[in-house]
Each structure stands twice: as C-alpha cells, then as structure tokens.
C-alpha cells in the first residue's frame, strides 16, 4: 500500500511538472514578459538590462526552475491587462469559485446518487423511466443554455432570484463568503443548479448502470438466499459495491466542476476565477492563463490522489494486495 501511494505521488509530481512546463512555455515564449512591464518608449538597452536582471537570458532549464520556484510561492508576474500581480488577482477570486463549485457538487451528489440508486433498483418503474429521459436531455443541453433558461424563468419572468453577481458577501479577512447573507444565498441557487446539473445526470446514469450490474451478481443473489432484508441488500451490499467507480467519477467530476465554472461564471457574471480566465483568454493575458493552468493542474492532481486514497478505505482487496490492480474493470 505504501509503495502504491509513493508511486502515485511520483506520478502526480510528473504530471505537475509537465503542466508546469506547458505553463512556462506559454509564459516565456508566447507572451513577452518585458512588454508587459515597460512602456513603448523604453529603449532597447533598457529592455536588455531588464532582461538580464529578470534572468530572461539564462539557459532555459534555469528559467524553468526559477518559474517553478516562483509559482510555488504564488508569484506569477503581472497581468498584461491590468498590471496587477496575477497571484493576488486569482487569490481574490478563489472563494467565489470554490463556494459555487461546492454548492454545485453537493447538489449533484445528494440529488444524483439517490436518483441513480432509485432508477437502478426499480428500472421498470415509470418514475425511473422519466428520470432516464430527463437525464438524456440533461446530458445533451450545454451548460450555458441551462443557465440562460433558468435566468429567463426565475429572474426575468418570475423575478424570484437574481441573475448575476454574488449578492452581498461577508468579508472574513482572507475569504469572502456568500453563506452568511440572505441575498448571498439566493444568488447561489441558480448558478449552483446550472453548474451541477450536468454532473448530476452523469452521476445518476453511472450509479444506475453500476447498480443494475451489481444487482445481477451472485453475491447479491446469495445475500437474498440468506434472507437479508431488502434494506441491507440494497444499501449495505449493493450500494457499497457501486462506490468504487462512483468515487472515481465523482472525484474527476469535482475537478471538472471547477473547470466548467468558467461557463457558469460567465453566464451569471459571477466574479470567480473562471471569469478571470475567460477575460484573460480574450485579451491573450498569458501570465493569468499560465497561472490558472497550474492551479487547475494542482487541483486535479490533489483530487486524483484523494480518490486513490478513498479506494483503500472502500475496498479491502486493495489494502492487502498493495493496490496491484484497480478493481471493477476500470
């Protein structure tokens, strides 16, 4: 088990270095860091001195190491667009994105998984078939379209909920939160549903198909032959066996949520990291793009590691075999 985790850890570092390399190439070769720092009238010599001072004439591997070292301290240079430090710009917007993604994840998990369990246990019931049909539509609708439809219905026509912004937030010093004001909470509803809906349908379909598969296994039949109650069979035996693939997908989807927040934040003018990223793509603001890329890379790596650790908690076969094989055919 220890070896397995160590291997995973090394893989994660490799992935991070690869992502860092892409970010570095962007930062160094696509944009020109000097142009962002000086005006039009700066002479060629002054530029050259600055280059030397910033280490831009060093050999590429040294520059890469410097870049990584700076990134590790949250230093990503200045934005081309606003000339602010990129690290601070991102940090200011992290709470908005995390709170939105958190609510969307809770929504997807606590609605999607029960719906999947239900449709898996009673596949022929009409409500299950309704869920299935709705989920197919949910998978086919682009996120932004769902957001627009929700805004049209609940904000424009019914005037029940706000259609943009975070509402009033409370500043806790290092974190701004929506959770402490009524308007902040109301502002969270539509964006969370929009962001979570796709993941909800995905989770529901996954849990359903895993449930259907598990219910056909011999150990479920044997559990019935032992006279266990339906409750124990459905939730103790069947559900636990669907957990391994569900954890994988749910984990990966958590990362996808934060990435997909780009779209939702644009629709709802939500002042998060995703909105910042879109603005930086529109203006080719390379330092912000590079920083965002690294941040997302780090996030995905952390999530993947967490998922691997969760496997050990769920599946005893991994605990004793040192994780030689991932189970359930994935």
């Amino acid at each position, binding site marked *: 088990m220890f070896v397995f985790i160590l291997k995973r850890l090394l893989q994660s570092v490799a992935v991070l270095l690869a992502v860092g390399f892409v970010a570095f190439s962007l930062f160094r070769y696509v944009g020109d860091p000097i142009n962002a720092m000086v005006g039009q009238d700066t002479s060629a010599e002054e530029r050259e001195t600055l280059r030397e001072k910033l280490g831009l004439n060093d050999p590429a591997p040294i520059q890469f190491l410097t870049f990584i070292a700076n990134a590790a301290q949250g230093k990503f240079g200045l934005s081309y667009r606003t000339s602010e430090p990129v690290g601070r710009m991102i940090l200011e917007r992290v709470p908005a994105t995390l709170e939105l993604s958190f609510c969307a994840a809770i929504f997807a998990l606590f609605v999607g998984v029960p719906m999947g369990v239900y449709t898996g246990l009673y596949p022929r019931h009409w409500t299950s078939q309704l869920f299935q049909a709705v989920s197919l539509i949910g998978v086919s609708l682009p996120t932004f379209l769902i957001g627009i439809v929700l805004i049209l219905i609940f904000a424009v026509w019914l005037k029940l909920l706000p259609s943009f912004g975070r509402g009033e937030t409370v500043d806790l010093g290092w974190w701004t939160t929506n959770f402490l004001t009524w308007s902040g909470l109301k502002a969270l509803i539509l964006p969370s549903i929009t962001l979570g809906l796709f993941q909800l349908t995905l989770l529901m379909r996954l849990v359903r198909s895993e449930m259907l598969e598990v219910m056909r*296994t*011999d*150990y479920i*039949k*044997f*559990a*019935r*032959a*032992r*006279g*266990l*109650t*339906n409750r*124990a069979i459905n939730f*103790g*035996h069947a559900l*636990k*066996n669907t957990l391994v693939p569900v954890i994988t997908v749910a984990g990966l989807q958590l990362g996808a949520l934060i990435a997909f927040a780009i779209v939702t934040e644009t629709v709802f003018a939500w002042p998060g990291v995703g909105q910042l990223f879109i603005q930086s793509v529109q203006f080719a603001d390379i330092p912000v793009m590079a920083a965002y890329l690294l941040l997302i890379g780090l996030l995905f790596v952390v999530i993947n590691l967490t998922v691997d650790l969760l496997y050990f908690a*769920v*599946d*005893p*076969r991994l605990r*004793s075999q040192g994780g030689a094989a991932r189970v359930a055919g994935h």
Partner: protein
Amino acid sequence: MAAPSNNPPLLEVKNLRVEFPTRRGTLLAVDDVSFDIAPGEVLGVVGESGAGKSLTGNAIIGLLEPPGRIAGGEIRLEGRRIDDLPYEEMRKVRGARIGAIFQDPLTSLNPLYSVGHQLIETIQTHLPLSSAEARTRALDLLKEVGIPGAETRIDHYPHQFSGGMRQRVVIALALCAGPRLIVADEPTTALDVSIQAQIIALLKRLCREHGTAVMLVTHDMGVIAETADRVAVMYAGRIAEIGPVRDVVKHAKHPYTKGLMGSIPSLGVRTERLTQIDGAMPRLTEIPTGCAFNPRCTERGGRCLVERPDLMAVGATRAACWQHDRGGVGPAIVREAVDA
C-alpha cells in the same frame, strides 16, 4: 441410510411448473414435477444442464430470476405452503428455515465485507442474538466447517481465502440460522477435484449432525451415489426416475438413467468402454410429443411417440417409462389402437 417413510415430509413439491415467457412464446422449463424430502434426508437431483434441476431449486427458495415464474403446483415446507408467500414472509423463511449454497464460492461472498460481518449479519437477521453472542456463534460455525485459526480468520475478507475455504464459509453461512433444509446447487462444480470430496463429506457430516435435510443439485452422478439417500433424475423439465440411491444406481429402471449410469467410470470394475447416450437433450422449444426421451431411447415402442408416461412405481423406485406400465399395455401399443 434409507428415508424414514412414516414421518411427515419436510418438503413437499407437488405438480410444480416453472415457465419463461419469451418472444417466441412461453417455455415450460419445469413441467409437473413432484417429490418429497423427509427430515434429515439427502435428496440428489441429477440431470444435464437445462433439465430444470437448478430452476426447481430456485423455485423452492423463492428466487426464480424474472421473467421465470411458478406457473402451477405448490411447495410446502413443514406442511406450510411457501410458494405463494409475499416477498417479506418468504424472506424470513430463506436463511432461517431453508439455507442455500450456490455453485461458485468465489462470487457468492461480497468482496467488501469480512466473512465475520457477513455471518453475524445473517445470524442477527434471523435470530434474536446480541452482537457478541452472534460473533461467538459465527466463530463456532467457522470452527465447525473446519476453518483453521477461526479466531483471526473471522475478520478476514473473502479474497484472503482459497476456493475450498470460501465454500466452507458459504456452508457456514447457509447453516448459521439452523435451517431444516439446504438447497445446494452444484456446490462443488467450481472447485478443484481434490477439494470436491472434502466439501461433500463436510456437507454430509454437518447435515447429519444438525439433522438438516439437503436437496443436492448436481450433474455429477458420482457425488450423488456417495452422498444421497434418494435420487431424482431429471430430463427436459420432468422427473424421469426417482428412488433410493442404491436401487437407482444399481438397477436403473428408466433407459435414460441406465445410460447415465453407463457413463460413470467405476473403480475396480473393468469395463470395455463407457457407454454414452447418443444425441442431446432437446431444447425446450423442441420437446417431442410422447416421451421427451424417445428420440434417443434404445428401447422405444410406438406408444412412446404419442403418449407421455407419468411416474410409475417399480419396486422402491418410480420411473416415467411405459416399460413399467404393469396394469396397462406396455410401450408397444400405439395409442390409437387403445382408443379404438
């Protein structure tokens, strides 16, 4: 050990019919099957795959897989009818009064729970015991089925046991609430040949000690000959012959059974070659009129082609063959002639 015939039977199956609706019409997979099992008796049920023996077992424990369903007849356990019980009532019978053992010990146990957890869970479902008492009982059972080091093994997970050890755990699970009957469906087929005999011996010993009856479903005539008190031979959804194991093995009355016995190699007896039955069992869609065995039968008469034989008593056994129609006219007479 002969069946004590004066006691009331533990299990009575009367005219059981199991059918499967399919796109091309309804298939009758078990057709008018009747038999009894006495308390403590081991009944072997033998036949080729598709003969309906596993379905009969599943019907008894109330776990026919849809769309299969009981279409007629009745099943009684200790005099109480159980084939028409609501799901929840039948659930209380399963595990408590009737235990079950399936073919593959590798897949019968939930891989995510320790064997102790699965034992205790089953015990507490059926018996009013505290967790500590249930654990003690689980431990005793594991010792009884011959798991070495039961005190530590109880907390191990299924994948940490070998196939034979897992089947021992499965037997412990089937026995843990003290059932009167165990339906064992091919309990050794998936195991190594060297382990099969141990498992069968264990099953036989435990059931004798606990006074539990067994319905042993298998296609292995050798296992039946060693273990069973009585044997039922099934063919194409019907019982071809049923009787005390010694009679059926030594003096088979049905041509199909004779064929089956001819195909068992026996130690000590030098035979030129093993006989085999020509042809294959018909599919359920293509069962011929008259006796289902008639296309393969070497002793067939005209009557066998048109009229289906019911079980007829021949000494201690009963066989579904016109040869034994003592009061009647035997296999040679065509039905039209009888009617005319």
